[in-house]
């Protein structure tokens, strides 16, 4: 992947992402104008819908949870020098893992045992789905971008096949599995709050949020504090130096993609165990690609990813509200904004970065002249 121009740190992590976001929103605003709506009105409804009520906030955080997982997945792979575009498929297979394990074991195990088993299942299934393209890249030179795109489609085909042919309860027309026993359900946050005496409006927000934040801490520790992370970053950043240091690049590809797939697979916990309670079609709904946007905006760092996930959570929840309240708007506006963010923060990063570099140098030289 291409590395941007050397800017001072505060510009690189603070100013540039905000600038990219601003440009993307400005273009989105133009689109809103073109379709004859008011950007100001849309923005107000959006922010209100996402942050203006406790219920909305609950939804926003629930969306953010999924995005944290997929964003971390992209970030870990990026630090290993790989572009994991297969988060969508890895999340689907993670969900399949959760579904199969829950259907099999949930009638027999109590929640304190079942839930950790489900987390393990989600991680292992997601990891396995990423490991195959990783192996093909490392040992057979197959371009990982293409293979992971193919595996995305294979994952959804697999899901359809399982649901239609194996998991659908007899006589049911809906393409979904039977419900899990309660022990396989990630407790919803409003239920937990009720037990503690607090009144929270119901929302899909569940304990997975805690899991997501824990995953952030883990990824931060792994990448910058652990020996394994050191080796991974070395391979991602300087493959020749890594070879000189005796680090084996092929293993690192497996590690990077394996961890990445495991993180993406955790989406299954949030969606399948937390919200749906059964395996369904298309529960990932593009979150794998949102993860790419989140990671780009968050500069591939857990802190940035949390912030960017919140941003996208706001966009998604706010987008739903806007599509309810303002006729002529649909949820696809959010997808458009997301695409614009990836375009400016990712593809066009090389356009704005040199510009900022020059502005910075200009500013510095003026400072030197006056100082």
């Amino acid at each position, binding site marked *: 992947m291409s590395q941007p121009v*050397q800017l001072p740190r505060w510009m690189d992590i603070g100013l540039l992402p905000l600038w990219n976001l601003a440009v993307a929103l400005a273009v989105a605003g133009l689109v809103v104008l073109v379709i004859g709506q008011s950007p100001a009105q849309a923005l107000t409804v959006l922010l209100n819908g996402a942050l203006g009520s406790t219920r909305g906030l609950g939804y926003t955080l629930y969306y953010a949870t999924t995005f944290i997982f997929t964003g971390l997945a992209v970030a870990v792979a990026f630090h290993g020098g790989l572009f994991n575009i297969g988060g969508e498929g890895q999340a689907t297979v993670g969900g399949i893992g959760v579904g199969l394990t829950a259907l099999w074991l949930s009638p027999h195990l109590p929640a304190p045992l079942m839930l950790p088993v489900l987390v393990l299942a989600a991680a292992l299934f997601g990891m396995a789905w990423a490991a195959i393209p990783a192996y093909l890249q490392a040992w057979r030179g197959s371009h990982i971008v293409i293979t992971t795109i193919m595996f995305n489609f294979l994952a959804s085909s697999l899901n359809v096949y399982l649901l239609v042919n194996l998991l659908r309860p007899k006589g049911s027309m809906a393409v979904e599995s039977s419900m899990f026993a309660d022990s396989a359900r990630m407790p919803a946050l409003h239920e937990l709050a009720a037990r503690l005496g607090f009144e929270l409006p119901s929302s899909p927000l569940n304990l997975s949020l805690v899991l997501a934040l824990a995953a952030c801490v883990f990824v931060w*520790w792994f990448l910058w*504090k*652990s*020996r*394994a992370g*050191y*080796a991974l*970053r*070395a391979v991602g*950043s*300087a493959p*020749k*130096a*890594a*070879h*000189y*240091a*005796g680090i084996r690049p092929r293993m690192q590809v497996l590690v990077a993609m394996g961890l990445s797939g495991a993180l993406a697979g955790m989406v299954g916990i949030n969606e399948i165990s937390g919200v749906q309670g059964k395996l369904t079609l298309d529960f990932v709904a593009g979150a794998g690609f949102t993860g790419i946007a989140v990671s780009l905006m968050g500069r591939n760092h857990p802190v940035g990813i949390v912030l960017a996930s919140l941003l996208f959570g706001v966009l998604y929840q706010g987008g739903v509200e806007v599509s309810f309240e303002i006729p002529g708007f649909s949820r696809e506006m959010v997808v458009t904004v997301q695409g614009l963010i990836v375009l400016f923060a990712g593809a066009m990063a090389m356009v704005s970065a040199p510009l900022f570099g020059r502005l910075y140098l200009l500013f510095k030289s003026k400072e030197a002249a006056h100082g």
Partner: protein
Amino acid sequence: MSEISSGTAVPSAVTPAVRLAGISKRFGAVQANRGVEFEIAPGTVHGLVGENGAGKSTLMAILYGYYQADAGHIEVQGQRVQIANSHQAIALGIGMVHQHFMLVDTLSCLDNVMLGAEPAFFLARAKREVRAKLEALMRDTGLHVHLDALVADLPVGELQRLEILKALYRGARILILDEPTAVLTPQETQQLFETLRRLRALGTTIILITHKLKEVMALCDAVTVMRAGQVIKTCDIRDTSPEDLAEAMVGRKVNLGRSGGAAEGRDERLSVNGLCLKSEQGVALLSDVSLSLRAGEIVGVAGVSGNGQSELLELLSGMRAPDAGRMSLGGASFEAARWLEPRGARALKLAHVPEDRHACGMVMSFPAWETAVLGYHDQAQYRCGPGGLTMNEGHMRAQTAEMMERFDVRPRNAELGSSKFSGGNQQKLVLAREIGQAPAVLLVGQPTRGVDIGAIEFIHGQLRALRDAGCAVLLVSSELDEILALADRVLVMNGGRITGELPIDQCDEKSLGLLMAAQAD
């Protein structure tokens, strides 16, 4: 310093094909060419010799339009010209055959010649025209190439002929060849010489950049020797000899008073036998290299860059495996099939300061304290936390601070990104890391490339101290001065072989120069 004569060797009645008048070129702090002045007679083969960094390549790049000179001018066929880019050079009849071929593997030879100068929109007709021209050209020059074969399927010698054909097709009357025999087998070299002689007979002027003196004597009509950006001498080949040229090339008085330590009787730390390495195209990079390193000595490997020194370092450090050969290090022995690996090398107390510190020796995006443990990051001393999975950052940072103090790395900031340090400080950091492991064997490649004077002195001092403490040091450097200042004995490499070995007190310009220019028979 040796005398600098700038007289031309050819009677000035004939208009020279090329005349370089006072060419100077500076790149930042480096003066690549300084007042270069000489003439090349038409229809001759003119050799341009010198060590690495002598300024030959820069000079030819200026002639071919890649760079513009800061001062001086160029005359082609008696006319003063401005050469702003390579297309203008081609228009003036100057063609260049680079060391790294500019060819498209998946296209045929014919297509490669034609690209950019296709005579027609429809290839069928274009190919007919080009083929007719090329066949005439091949007849006249005796250069033969399989026009319809794919470049990927052809041997290197034929590809070089293709490059020459490409230049001639575009009307080159002055042909520059940059180290053409570097990639050729001995037979292919002879064939090339035949071709060049035939071209000369047809009136083409040929400029041959090389450091191989035997070839110069065999082929050239006149020769110019350059050193440190200046022309040392230009003369007719009949008026000189290999020894003469070698002395001009090397040209500095050696401090003959220095004698090295006697290393016999000390234990052998590393030895290799019969190392052979071939490139993908089958060109021999190393042929039957054997050497032995003893404790408490610095062995310098001298020779013009590109003669196998880099490959030797890669093999000895375990970064690459040879096709044949044996190595014994610290009691363990290795065969070509199951060669040493970098991890194993370090475990056997071999440290390596790589030639390319930017790509290999450091991770530019890491802070200094992370670069300072590169290669040793898995050692027990750097592990902590449950299961030893966490990096012992405190210890790493403390050690880095210590290293920076001992080796005077500035700024003394272990958090600073590795890319932010100056070249000299980066090199000192890498050295500090490798020397800090108290190795039994240290491999060092180009330790002072891009390093300022003060740091050079410091680094040399560190290497001597290491030697005195009993380490075996292998020093590869294209700076002859450095080798002469540090080594106890000097090995000279040329063409992938070790052409000779001299103890330091027997080194002088002639003997070294001859060894550096010698070609294996």
